[in-house]
Protein backbone atom coordinates (compact mmCIF):
# COMPACT_ATOMS: atom_id res chain seq x y z
CA UNK A 1 0.00 0.00 0.00
CA UNK A 2 2.54 2.54 -1.15
CA UNK A 3 1.79 5.20 -3.74
CA UNK A 4 4.57 5.36 -6.32
CA UNK A 5 6.54 8.37 -7.41
CA UNK A 6 4.75 10.19 -10.23
CA UNK A 7 1.25 8.89 -9.52
CA UNK A 8 -0.03 12.04 -7.81
CA UNK A 9 -0.45 15.69 -8.78
CA UNK A 10 1.56 18.46 -7.10
CA UNK A 11 -1.27 19.93 -4.94
CA UNK A 12 -2.08 16.47 -3.59
CA UNK A 13 1.59 15.90 -2.76
CA UNK A 14 1.72 19.27 -0.99
CA UNK A 15 -1.45 18.53 1.00
CA UNK A 16 -0.06 15.16 2.07
CA UNK A 17 3.22 16.74 3.12
CA UNK A 18 1.37 19.38 5.16
CA UNK A 19 -0.70 16.76 6.99
CA UNK A 20 2.42 14.69 7.65
CA UNK A 21 4.29 17.72 9.00
CA UNK A 22 1.51 18.62 11.43
CA UNK A 23 1.26 15.01 12.61
CA UNK A 24 5.03 14.71 12.94
CA UNK A 25 5.35 17.88 15.01
CA UNK A 26 2.55 16.80 17.37
CA UNK A 27 4.06 13.32 17.62
CA UNK A 28 7.57 14.57 18.31
CA UNK A 29 6.36 17.10 20.87
CA UNK A 30 4.66 14.34 22.87
CA UNK A 31 7.55 11.94 22.53
CA UNK A 32 9.43 11.17 25.73
CA UNK A 33 12.82 9.39 25.77
CA UNK A 34 11.21 6.48 27.65
CA UNK A 35 9.02 5.83 24.63
CA UNK A 36 11.87 5.73 22.12
CA UNK A 37 12.53 1.96 22.27
CA UNK A 38 8.84 1.26 21.60
CA UNK A 39 8.80 3.71 18.72
CA UNK A 40 11.87 2.03 17.25
CA UNK A 41 10.61 -1.54 17.62
CA UNK A 42 7.22 -0.72 16.09
CA UNK A 43 8.92 1.22 13.33
CA UNK A 44 11.01 -1.86 12.60
CA UNK A 45 7.92 -4.07 12.66
CA UNK A 46 6.22 -1.84 10.11
CA UNK A 47 9.40 -1.71 8.03
CA UNK A 48 9.56 -5.50 7.61
CA UNK A 49 5.80 -6.09 7.88
CA UNK A 50 5.56 -4.83 4.32
CA UNK A 51 7.56 -7.89 3.26
CA UNK A 52 5.01 -10.40 4.53
CA UNK A 53 2.84 -11.35 1.57
CA UNK A 54 -0.90 -11.86 1.75
CA UNK A 55 -2.85 -13.08 -1.29
CA UNK A 56 -5.12 -10.37 -2.63
CA UNK A 57 -8.66 -10.52 -3.95
CA UNK A 58 -9.38 -9.25 -7.47
CA UNK A 59 -5.75 -8.42 -7.99
CA UNK A 60 -2.75 -10.11 -9.50
CA UNK A 61 -0.01 -10.85 -7.05
CA UNK A 62 0.08 -10.19 -3.36
CA UNK A 63 -0.46 -7.36 -0.96
CA UNK A 64 1.37 -7.13 2.30
CA UNK A 65 0.91 -6.78 6.06
CA UNK A 66 0.66 -3.16 7.14
CA UNK A 67 0.72 -3.20 10.96
CA UNK A 68 -0.04 0.51 11.21
CA UNK A 69 -2.97 -0.07 13.58
CA UNK A 70 -0.83 -1.87 16.13
CA UNK A 71 1.74 0.88 15.82
CA UNK A 72 -0.85 3.55 16.58
CA UNK A 73 -2.48 1.55 19.35
CA UNK A 74 0.74 1.42 21.35
CA UNK A 75 2.23 4.76 20.35
CA UNK A 76 -0.69 7.14 19.85
CA UNK A 77 0.56 10.30 18.17
CA UNK A 78 4.12 8.96 18.20
CA UNK A 79 2.92 6.71 15.35
CA UNK A 80 3.66 9.62 13.01
CA UNK A 81 7.45 9.72 13.58
CA UNK A 82 7.58 5.93 13.90
CA UNK A 83 5.83 5.26 10.59
CA UNK A 84 7.62 8.15 8.89
CA UNK A 85 11.06 6.69 9.64
CA UNK A 86 9.97 3.25 8.37
CA UNK A 87 8.51 4.78 5.18
CA UNK A 88 11.72 6.73 4.52
CA UNK A 89 13.70 3.51 4.79
CA UNK A 90 11.25 1.55 2.61
CA UNK A 91 11.46 4.27 -0.02
CA UNK A 92 15.27 4.36 0.04
CA UNK A 93 16.03 0.65 0.43
CA UNK A 94 13.11 -1.14 -1.25
CA UNK A 95 12.00 1.62 -3.64
CA UNK A 96 8.49 1.24 -2.24
CA UNK A 97 6.75 4.58 -2.55
CA UNK A 98 9.23 7.41 -3.04
CA UNK A 99 10.65 10.54 -1.47
CA UNK A 100 8.21 13.04 -3.01
CA UNK A 101 5.21 10.91 -1.98
CA UNK A 102 6.54 10.48 1.54
CA UNK A 103 4.10 12.99 3.01
CA UNK A 104 1.08 11.36 1.40
CA UNK A 105 2.19 7.86 2.37
CA UNK A 106 2.83 9.00 5.96
CA UNK A 107 -0.64 10.54 6.12
CA UNK A 108 -2.24 7.40 4.64
CA UNK A 109 -0.56 5.19 7.25
CA UNK A 110 -0.48 7.37 10.35
CA UNK A 111 -3.92 9.02 10.39
CA UNK A 112 -5.74 5.66 10.77
CA UNK A 113 -3.11 4.61 13.31
CA UNK A 114 -3.78 7.59 15.57
CA UNK A 115 -7.55 7.25 15.11
CA UNK A 116 -7.38 3.55 16.00
CA UNK A 117 -5.63 4.50 19.22
CA UNK A 118 -8.30 7.05 20.11
CA UNK A 119 -11.15 4.69 19.24
CA UNK A 120 -10.03 1.31 20.53
CA UNK A 121 -7.53 1.81 23.34
CA UNK A 122 -10.36 1.59 25.90
CA UNK A 123 -11.48 -1.77 24.55
CA UNK A 124 -7.94 -3.05 24.60
CA UNK A 125 -7.52 -1.98 28.21
CA UNK A 126 -10.78 -3.63 29.21
CA UNK A 127 -10.82 -6.19 31.96
CA UNK A 128 -12.14 -8.99 29.78
CA UNK A 129 -9.61 -10.67 27.53
CA UNK A 130 -12.26 -11.28 24.93
CA UNK A 131 -13.20 -7.61 24.70
CA UNK A 132 -9.52 -6.75 24.44
CA UNK A 133 -9.02 -9.27 21.64
CA UNK A 134 -11.94 -7.77 19.75
CA UNK A 135 -10.43 -4.34 20.33
CA UNK A 136 -7.18 -5.58 18.81
CA UNK A 137 -8.99 -7.11 15.85
CA UNK A 138 -10.92 -3.89 15.21
CA UNK A 139 -7.70 -1.89 15.44
CA UNK A 140 -6.06 -3.93 12.70
CA UNK A 141 -9.07 -4.23 10.43
CA UNK A 142 -10.17 -0.60 10.85
CA UNK A 143 -6.78 0.98 10.22
CA UNK A 144 -6.07 -1.03 7.07
CA UNK A 145 -9.49 -0.29 5.65
CA UNK A 146 -9.22 3.42 6.42
CA UNK A 147 -5.71 3.53 4.96
CA UNK A 148 -7.00 1.96 1.75
CA UNK A 149 -9.83 4.49 1.63
CA UNK A 150 -7.45 7.40 2.17
CA UNK A 151 -5.20 6.02 -0.56
CA UNK A 152 -8.19 5.93 -2.89
CA UNK A 153 -9.02 9.49 -1.86
CA UNK A 154 -5.54 10.80 -2.65
CA UNK A 155 -5.64 9.05 -6.04
CA UNK A 156 -9.07 10.53 -6.69
CA UNK A 157 -7.84 14.08 -6.09
CA UNK A 158 -5.07 13.39 -8.58
CA UNK A 159 -7.56 12.56 -11.30
CA UNK A 160 -8.43 8.89 -10.94
CA UNK A 161 -12.12 8.16 -10.74
CA UNK A 162 -12.86 7.80 -7.06
CA UNK A 163 -15.41 5.02 -7.17
CA UNK A 164 -12.92 2.90 -9.07
CA UNK A 165 -9.78 3.77 -7.11
CA UNK A 166 -11.30 3.65 -3.65
CA UNK A 167 -13.47 0.58 -4.24
CA UNK A 168 -10.48 -1.18 -5.73
CA UNK A 169 -8.18 -0.25 -2.88
CA UNK A 170 -10.67 -1.33 -0.23
CA UNK A 171 -11.68 -4.55 -1.99
CA UNK A 172 -8.09 -5.57 -2.57
CA UNK A 173 -7.23 -5.01 1.06
CA UNK A 174 -10.15 -6.98 2.52
CA UNK A 175 -8.04 -10.10 3.13
CA UNK A 176 -5.33 -7.92 4.62
CA UNK A 177 -7.89 -6.32 6.93
CA UNK A 178 -8.91 -9.75 8.20
CA UNK A 179 -5.35 -11.05 8.59
CA UNK A 180 -4.25 -7.79 10.11
CA UNK A 181 -7.16 -7.89 12.54
CA UNK A 182 -6.26 -11.40 13.67
CA UNK A 183 -2.55 -10.55 13.99
CA UNK A 184 -3.38 -7.40 15.96
CA UNK A 185 -5.82 -9.33 18.15
CA UNK A 186 -3.18 -11.87 19.13
CA UNK A 187 -0.54 -9.15 19.57
CA UNK A 188 -2.87 -7.38 22.01
CA UNK A 189 -3.44 -10.64 23.89
CA UNK A 190 0.31 -11.24 24.04
CA UNK A 191 1.12 -7.72 25.17
CA UNK A 192 -1.53 -7.84 27.90
CA UNK A 193 0.12 -10.90 29.36
CA UNK A 194 3.76 -10.00 28.87
CA UNK A 195 3.99 -6.23 28.85
CA UNK A 196 0.65 -4.62 29.77
CA UNK A 197 2.39 -1.27 30.39
CA UNK A 198 2.88 -0.93 26.64
CA UNK A 199 -0.89 -0.64 26.30
CA UNK A 200 -1.08 1.75 29.23
CA UNK A 201 -2.42 -0.93 31.60
CA UNK A 202 -1.13 -0.57 35.14
CA UNK A 203 0.29 -3.52 37.04
CA UNK A 204 -2.30 -3.34 39.78
CA UNK A 205 -5.02 -3.84 37.23
CA UNK A 206 -3.49 -7.11 36.10
CA UNK A 207 -3.36 -8.30 39.71
CA UNK A 208 -7.04 -7.57 40.18
CA UNK A 209 -7.79 -9.49 37.08
CA UNK A 210 -6.00 -12.63 38.15
CA UNK A 211 -7.67 -12.49 41.54
CA UNK A 212 -11.15 -11.94 40.15
Amino acid at each position, binding site marked *: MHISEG*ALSAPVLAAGAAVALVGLSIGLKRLSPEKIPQVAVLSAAFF*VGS*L*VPIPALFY*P*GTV*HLVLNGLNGLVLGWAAFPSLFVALVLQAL*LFQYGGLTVLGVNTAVMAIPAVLAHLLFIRLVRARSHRVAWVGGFLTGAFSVTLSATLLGGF*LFFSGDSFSEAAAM*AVAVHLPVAVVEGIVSGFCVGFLRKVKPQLLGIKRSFKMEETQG
Partner: protein
Amino acid sequence: MKMSRYTGNVAVIFLALVLCAQVAVAHKVNLFGYAEGGFVYVEGYFTDGAPSMGSEVEVYGPKGALVAQGVTDGDGRFFFPAETPGSYRVALKASMGHVTEIVVEVGENKREREVAAGGSSGVGTLGPVSAVSAPELYALEEKVARLTKEVRALRKQVEKPGFSQIVGGLGFIIGMAGAYLWGASRKKG
Protein backbone atom coordinates in the same frame (compact mmCIF):
# COMPACT_ATOMS: atom_id res chain seq x y z
CA MET B 1 14.76 1.63 33.96
CA LYS B 2 14.09 -2.03 33.25
CA MET B 3 16.53 -1.95 30.40
CA SER B 4 17.60 -5.58 30.59
CA ARG B 5 14.08 -6.85 30.13
CA TYR B 6 13.59 -4.40 27.29
CA THR B 7 16.71 -5.58 25.52
CA GLY B 8 15.60 -9.18 25.88
CA ASN B 9 12.19 -8.47 24.38
CA VAL B 10 13.64 -6.32 21.66
CA ALA B 11 16.15 -9.01 20.71
CA VAL B 12 13.42 -11.66 20.47
CA ILE B 13 11.20 -9.43 18.35
CA PHE B 14 14.03 -8.51 15.99
CA LEU B 15 15.01 -12.12 15.57
CA ALA B 16 11.43 -13.01 14.72
CA LEU B 17 11.23 -10.14 12.25
CA VAL B 18 14.45 -11.09 10.49
CA LEU B 19 13.31 -14.70 10.24
CA CYS B 20 9.97 -13.84 8.70
CA ALA B 21 11.70 -11.41 6.36
CA GLN B 22 13.52 -14.34 4.77
CA VAL B 23 10.39 -15.72 3.18
CA ALA B 24 9.63 -12.24 1.99
CA VAL B 25 8.12 -11.13 -1.24
CA ALA B 26 6.36 -7.88 -1.81
CA HIS B 27 4.87 -5.28 -3.86
CA LYS B 28 6.02 -2.67 -6.28
CA VAL B 29 5.52 -2.63 -10.02
CA ASN B 30 8.46 -2.99 -12.43
CA LEU B 31 8.79 -2.90 -16.19
CA PHE B 32 11.16 -4.79 -18.45
CA GLY B 33 11.47 -3.99 -22.13
CA TYR B 34 13.50 -4.59 -25.28
CA ALA B 35 13.38 -3.78 -28.98
CA GLU B 36 13.39 -6.46 -31.65
CA GLY B 37 12.52 -6.57 -35.31
CA GLY B 38 10.74 -3.24 -35.50
CA PHE B 39 8.70 -3.87 -32.35
CA VAL B 40 9.21 -3.00 -28.71
CA TYR B 41 8.15 -5.63 -26.17
CA VAL B 42 7.53 -4.72 -22.53
CA GLU B 43 6.52 -6.79 -19.55
CA GLY B 44 5.14 -5.43 -16.28
CA TYR B 45 5.49 -7.43 -13.08
CA PHE B 46 5.34 -6.94 -9.33
CA THR B 47 8.23 -7.45 -6.96
CA ASP B 48 6.99 -10.94 -6.14
CA GLY B 49 7.11 -11.84 -9.83
CA ALA B 50 3.35 -11.76 -10.45
CA PRO B 51 2.46 -10.25 -13.83
CA SER B 52 0.90 -6.81 -13.86
CA MET B 53 -2.08 -7.75 -16.01
CA GLY B 54 -4.63 -5.36 -17.41
CA SER B 55 -2.46 -2.34 -16.64
CA GLU B 56 -2.66 0.80 -18.75
CA VAL B 57 0.39 1.42 -20.93
CA GLU B 58 1.26 4.69 -22.61
CA VAL B 59 4.14 5.03 -25.07
CA TYR B 60 5.80 8.34 -25.93
CA GLY B 61 7.92 8.30 -29.07
CA PRO B 62 11.29 9.92 -29.82
CA LYS B 63 9.57 13.29 -30.35
CA GLY B 64 7.73 13.08 -27.04
CA ALA B 65 4.30 12.54 -28.54
CA LEU B 66 1.96 9.74 -27.51
CA VAL B 67 2.48 7.04 -30.15
CA ALA B 68 0.82 3.99 -28.64
CA GLN B 69 -1.59 3.17 -25.86
CA GLY B 70 -3.13 0.00 -24.54
CA VAL B 71 -3.52 -2.55 -21.80
CA THR B 72 -1.20 -5.41 -20.82
CA ASP B 73 -2.36 -8.98 -21.41
CA GLY B 74 -2.71 -11.79 -18.88
CA ASP B 75 1.07 -12.19 -18.65
CA GLY B 76 1.62 -8.47 -18.09
CA ARG B 77 2.95 -8.12 -21.65
CA PHE B 78 2.42 -5.43 -24.24
CA PHE B 79 4.10 -4.62 -27.54
CA PHE B 80 3.96 -1.85 -30.10
CA PRO B 81 5.53 -1.09 -33.48
CA ALA B 82 8.60 1.15 -33.30
CA GLU B 83 9.88 1.86 -36.79
CA THR B 84 11.48 5.24 -36.11
CA PRO B 85 14.81 4.94 -34.29
CA GLY B 86 15.19 6.79 -31.00
CA SER B 87 14.19 6.44 -27.39
CA TYR B 88 10.67 5.41 -26.46
CA ARG B 89 9.35 6.24 -22.98
CA VAL B 90 6.96 3.53 -21.80
CA ALA B 91 4.77 4.34 -18.77
CA LEU B 92 2.85 1.60 -17.00
CA LYS B 93 0.00 2.34 -14.63
CA ALA B 94 -1.11 -0.55 -12.44
CA SER B 95 -3.97 0.10 -10.05
CA MET B 96 -3.76 1.78 -6.64
CA GLY B 97 -1.01 4.28 -7.32
CA HIS B 98 1.55 1.83 -8.63
CA VAL B 99 3.23 3.42 -11.61
CA THR B 100 6.57 3.00 -13.29
CA GLU B 101 8.26 3.88 -16.55
CA ILE B 102 11.27 2.86 -18.61
CA VAL B 103 13.02 4.11 -21.72
CA VAL B 104 13.62 1.63 -24.53
CA GLU B 105 16.20 2.53 -27.20
CA VAL B 106 15.39 1.50 -30.74
CA GLY B 107 18.49 1.30 -32.95
CA GLU B 108 19.12 2.91 -36.34
CA ASN B 109 19.26 -0.34 -38.24
CA LYS B 110 15.94 -1.98 -38.92
CA ARG B 111 17.76 -5.12 -39.97
CA GLU B 112 19.26 -5.53 -36.52
CA ARG B 113 18.70 -9.25 -36.47
CA GLU B 114 20.67 -9.98 -39.62
CA VAL B 115 23.60 -7.85 -38.51
CA ALA B 116 23.61 -9.39 -35.06
CA ALA B 117 23.54 -12.82 -36.64
CA GLY B 118 26.68 -11.94 -38.61
CA GLY B 119 28.63 -11.80 -35.35
CA SER B 120 28.10 -15.47 -34.61
CA SER B 121 31.56 -16.53 -35.73
CA GLY B 122 33.14 -14.33 -33.04
CA VAL B 123 33.51 -10.75 -31.88
CA GLY B 124 34.95 -8.44 -34.50
CA THR B 125 34.63 -10.89 -37.37
CA LEU B 126 31.40 -9.51 -38.66
CA GLY B 127 30.93 -11.27 -41.97
CA PRO B 128 28.37 -10.59 -44.65
CA VAL B 129 24.84 -11.58 -43.79
CA SER B 130 24.62 -14.15 -46.54
CA ALA B 131 27.57 -16.06 -45.04
CA VAL B 132 25.45 -17.26 -42.12
CA SER B 133 23.67 -20.53 -42.64
CA ALA B 134 20.05 -21.01 -41.65
CA PRO B 135 20.68 -23.54 -38.82
CA GLU B 136 23.34 -21.24 -37.39
CA LEU B 137 20.92 -18.35 -37.42
CA TYR B 138 18.27 -20.49 -35.80
CA ALA B 139 20.63 -21.63 -33.05
CA LEU B 140 21.67 -18.06 -32.41
CA GLU B 141 18.13 -16.82 -32.14
CA GLU B 142 17.42 -19.53 -29.64
CA LYS B 143 20.45 -18.47 -27.63
CA VAL B 144 19.33 -14.83 -27.60
CA ALA B 145 15.83 -15.84 -26.53
CA ARG B 146 17.29 -17.84 -23.67
CA LEU B 147 19.52 -14.96 -22.61
CA THR B 148 16.61 -12.52 -22.70
CA LYS B 149 14.67 -14.85 -20.46
CA GLU B 150 17.60 -15.14 -18.10
CA VAL B 151 18.09 -11.38 -17.92
CA ARG B 152 14.41 -10.97 -17.13
CA ALA B 153 14.60 -13.54 -14.32
CA LEU B 154 17.73 -11.88 -12.93
CA ARG B 155 16.13 -8.46 -13.00
CA LYS B 156 13.16 -9.79 -11.08
CA GLN B 157 15.50 -11.18 -8.47
CA VAL B 158 17.61 -8.04 -8.20
CA GLU B 159 14.55 -5.86 -7.77
CA LYS B 160 13.38 -7.79 -4.72
CA PRO B 161 14.48 -6.31 -1.40
CA GLY B 162 17.61 -8.17 -0.37
CA PHE B 163 18.60 -9.48 3.01
CA SER B 164 21.26 -6.81 3.44
CA GLN B 165 18.73 -4.05 2.75
CA ILE B 166 16.35 -5.48 5.34
CA VAL B 167 19.02 -5.87 7.99
CA GLY B 168 20.48 -2.49 7.06
CA GLY B 169 17.13 -0.80 7.58
CA LEU B 170 16.62 -2.49 10.94
CA GLY B 171 20.13 -1.52 11.98
CA PHE B 172 19.45 2.06 11.01
CA ILE B 173 16.34 2.17 13.19
CA ILE B 174 18.22 0.70 16.17
CA GLY B 175 21.05 3.16 15.61
CA MET B 176 18.69 6.14 15.49
CA ALA B 177 16.98 5.05 18.70
CA GLY B 178 20.34 4.47 20.36
CA ALA B 179 21.65 7.87 19.33
CA TYR B 180 18.50 9.58 20.58
CA LEU B 181 18.61 7.77 23.91
CA TRP B 182 22.29 8.51 24.31
CA GLY B 183 21.64 12.20 23.73
CA ALA B 184 18.75 12.13 26.20
CA SER B 185 20.85 10.38 28.87
CA ARG B 186 23.68 12.89 28.47
CA LYS B 187 21.25 15.73 28.93
CA LYS B 188 19.99 14.13 32.15
CA GLY B 189 23.44 13.38 33.50
